[in-house]
């Protein structure tokens, strides 16, 4: 199972399965809305879909510019760091992707991220801390991991996950308010509807389930990016060494926020603060182990 092609295929299947469950959740919450609130419940759905679509897809289209602002990354030219551009160029040749924009974040904590709505608008960023501590092979592994996010269109996948999670959260939220401020009246007029107290349970649980699914999708995409990176460089040792450097490091990114946490190669948030289920990244030791298996057993 240490073969990167098998890993890639398995990861894609799992992402698809998780997105499918997200879709089911939307149907469930829509069903609850209609069956317990009737016409008003049905009216909430297009409202929630509209708000969620506008907010998430707006940020999706402006992702490169927005993320630059939020992370204080600065786009650099080739003359600013020829070696980094060489490394990015190498991975572009290996993957057949166009050259992305390259940015630097002035931060001592080693980390990196990729964004942009498609490979032609891609941007990959590295912290100065990362560039300072890593050697050529390690950096190549990190560059390949970030370019894998571009190749696998992870900005799109996370935008879809965020949109559906947003729809679920909004519908639940609006319905909960309706319940508080007059859902009871509604029930008096339509005797055939689902009792309100039965509707409360899915309204509370669905947003939590959506958040968990969103985190699970993010973890799968991280694992997929590791496997894809190896398919580009054919050098699992480089990425493994890079992850070991990240695992040893205890500093955290200064301009951090949970809104951009899923984009980084290593979670920029405090490990202790996030529980395993809500984590956007698989445990780094697990990722190192998988890469080790690829190194020792490349053809299985």
């Amino acid at each position, binding site marked *: 199972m240490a073969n*990167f092609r098998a890993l890639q295929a398995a990861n894609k299947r799992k992402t698809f399965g998780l997105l499918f469950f997200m879709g089911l959740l939307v149907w469930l919450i829509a069903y609850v809305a209609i069956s317990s609130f009737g016409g008003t419940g049905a009216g909430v759905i297009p409202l929630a879909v509209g708000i969620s679509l506008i907010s998430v897809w707006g940020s999706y289209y402006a992702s490169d510019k927005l993320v630059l602002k939020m992370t204080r990354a600065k786009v650099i030219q080739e003359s600013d760091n*020829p*070696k980094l551009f*060489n*490394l990015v*160029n*190498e*991975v572009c*040749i*290996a*993957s*057949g992707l166009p050259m992305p924009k390259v940015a630097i974040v002035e931060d001592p904590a080693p980390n990196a991220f990729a964004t942009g709505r498609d490979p032609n608008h891609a941007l990959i960023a590295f912290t100065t801390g990362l560039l300072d501590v890593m050697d*050529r092979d390690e950096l*190549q592994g990190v560059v390949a991991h970030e370019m894998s996010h571009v190749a696998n269109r992870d900005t799109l996948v996370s935008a879809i996950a965020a949109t559906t999670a947003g729809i679920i959260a909004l519908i639940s939220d609006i319905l909960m308010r309706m319940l508080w401020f007059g859902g009871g009246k509604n029930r008096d007029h339509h005797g055939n509807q689902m009792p309100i107290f039965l509707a409360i349970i899915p309204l509370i649980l669905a947003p939590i389930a959506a958040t968990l699914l969103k985190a699970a999708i993010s973890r799968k995409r991280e694992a997929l990016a590791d496997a894809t990176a*190896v398919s*580009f*460089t*054919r*050098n699992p*040792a480089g990425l493994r060494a890079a992850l070991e450097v990240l695992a040893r490091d205890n500093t955290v990114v200064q301009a951090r926020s949970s809104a951009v946490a899923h984009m980084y190669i290593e979670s920029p948030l405090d490990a202790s603060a996030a529980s395993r289920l809500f984590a956007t990244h698989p445990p780094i030791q697990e990722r190192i182990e998988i890469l080790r298996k*690829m*190194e*020792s057993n*490349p*053809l299985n």
Partner: protein
Amino acid sequence: MDASLLIVIAVGLFVIYAVIQYNRLVRLNVQVDEAFAQIEVQLKRRADLIPNLVETVKGYASHEREALENVVQARAASTTASTLPAIAAADGALTNALRGLLAVAEAYPDLKASTNFLQLQEELATTENKVSFSRQFYNETVRTLNTAVKTIPTSFFVGLAKVGAREFYEVDDPAARNAPNVKF
């Protein structure tokens, strides 16, 4: 009346299907050409770096004649190769000659510390990587094309598209054979 309409729809659908398959084969074939052009670009880049490297090494290790000669000869051979197997063979020979020269250079601390050599080192490292990644990408595109040429349904349209299986770019590289890296 109904039957003839069905036949027209069926023929129409088949034509659309055939066009899709035809275009896929042609596109894959063009991708192989592009990938090969990328190899040639990177080989040219490397060939252009070598005179500078040879001059730099000569300045500190002029009596390492054999290693220097190997590189110069391999470079000359690589510029005249024209068929794919010949280009691949010359490419592999030059990779080995360069590796030999750099191994020799290890014994000369003055050379390794010279600014010229330090500048060349990053250039050589990235060029060697670019050459090897462009080979790898070319072979990926050939693998995709050859699979399409040999598997149904695309294989039915091979004659129509005038596209056939292509040659892999195989470099005889002893280091690559022993390396733990994945090679298919």
